[in-house]
């Protein structure tokens, strides 16, 4: 993997920065302003901040974070419902680590755990099935958040639960799909974006062809990129060149991992077990068919149907995560950033998640 090591080589990255700045200047000469590029994926946001790319390019390109952090886009109502789910004594809640500290209206899963509720962090949804087998007298529920990268693994978990005839297992589904939210952002007209740095791992599942609508319907180019500094810089370079040449195209610049048609096995699993549903997004509201839920014949694995959860309507706070995930404001524009809200005492999910824009700004771009 010597080839891949080159992708984070500092000397190579320095040359790549020069190339990006050269292209950015050509864009500025042509259009009289900086290019505005949105990185859709939360892991890209964190990688761009951590590598110093965002700070280094701040005078040349405007890089804005998009709605690609699964924790950040989960609305307050869903988070409150998931926390409420943990309150019954005969339940074991399983989740990815990021969810533990996300604040609900009253408390977080972490606080519920310290009060004695059985909440466990798992690496894979499939690990949850072992917990269910070991605890036949408890109901084991996985909090199924995630985009197209995670969704096939949720479907695989349902398949495995059926094969093993596990009856005390269910998933609380709050999955999100990239295409509906990008269409929503573009059609809302609230944020002006020249081009997209498209999510690498989501593209592993979906494939390049599933992003062609951006070029066809909106005349906006996009480049599918990997996560190492040189890959990101090259993705930005290629995107700038498409804009300079006025070409609305989708380029796959992550060819060693992403195929044009994506991963067919993963797509088939999704289609077998799941169906589109109207999903609520933080700061946006319900977007029609922007998530996936279990098909009716698998309703016994659907925690929303299995357990009756009622919550009060969440109160509005000063947290501006909803605007941050839409790329409308920068974390520094939020009055809570680095004041009431920090990684030690997060107010909103963008400060909690390992892919959150506020966490990226706080850790790598804060000026004090």
């Amino acid at each position, binding site marked *: 993997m010597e080839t*891949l090591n080159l992708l984070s080589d500092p000397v190579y990255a320095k040359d790549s920065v020069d190339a990006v700045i050269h292209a950015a200047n050509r864009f500025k000469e042509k259009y009289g302003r900086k290019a505005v590029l949105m990185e859709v994926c939360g892991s890209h946001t964190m990688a761009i901040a951590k590598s110093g790319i965002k700070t280094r390019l701040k005078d040349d390109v405007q890089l804005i974070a998009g709605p690609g952090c699964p924790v950040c886009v989960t609305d307050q109502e869903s988070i409150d419902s998931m926390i409420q789910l943990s309150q019954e004594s005969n339940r074991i809640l399983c989740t990815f680590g990021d969810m533990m500290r996300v604040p609900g209206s009253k408390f977080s899963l972490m606080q519920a755990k310290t009060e004695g509720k059985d909440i466990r962090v798992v690496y894979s949804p499939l690990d949850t099935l072992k917990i269910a087998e070991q605890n036949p007298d408890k109901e084991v529920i996985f909090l199924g958040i995630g985009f197209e990268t995670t969704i096939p693994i949720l479907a695989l978990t349902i398949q495995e639960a059926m094969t093993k005839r596990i009856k005390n297992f269910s998933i609380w589904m709050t999955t999100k799909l990239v295409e509906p939210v990008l269409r929503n952002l573009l059609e809302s007209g609230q944020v002006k974006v020249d081009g997209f740095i498209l999510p690498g791992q989501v593209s592993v599942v979906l494939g390049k062809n599933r992003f062609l609508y951006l070029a066809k319907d909106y005349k906006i180019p996009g480049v599918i990129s990997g996560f190492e500094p040189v890959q990101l810089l090259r993705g930005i370079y290629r995107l700038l060149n498409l804009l300079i040449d006025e070409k609305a195209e989708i380029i796959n610049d992550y060819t060693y991992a992403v195929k044009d048609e994506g991963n067919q096995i993963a797509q088939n699993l999704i289609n077998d077990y799941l169906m589109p549903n109207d999903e609520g997004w933080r700061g946006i509201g319900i977007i029609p068919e922007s998530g996936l839920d279990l098909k009716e014949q698998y309703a016994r694995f659907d925690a929303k149907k299995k357990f009756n959860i009622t919550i009060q309507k969440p109160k509005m706070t000063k947290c501006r995560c909803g605007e941050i995930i839409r790329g409308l404001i920068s974390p520094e524009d939020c009055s809570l950033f680095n004041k009431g809200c920090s990684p030690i005492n997060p107010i909103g999910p963008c400060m909690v998640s390992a892919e959150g824009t506020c966490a990226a700004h706080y850790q790598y771009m804060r000026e004090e």
Partner: protein
Amino acid sequence: MCLGVPAKVIRIEAEKALVDVMGSRMYVGIVFVPEVEINDFVLLHAGQAMTIIDEVYAKESIEEWRRVLDGNFKSTI
């Protein structure tokens, strides 16, 4: 949550593989990459290998970029 770390496949057992991730060994699922072979590198997500890293494409991609950088960014890629 989505960052892919390359893992080298050491052993294959039905729908599982033993992989080496930067010195740590672990079992991961290979349902999504049934064609995987020993010594392949894969990208992992939540305990599953989601794709096989194609080293030929990776090398071509680096060489292509190197040509652009060496040519002082005059050609687009």
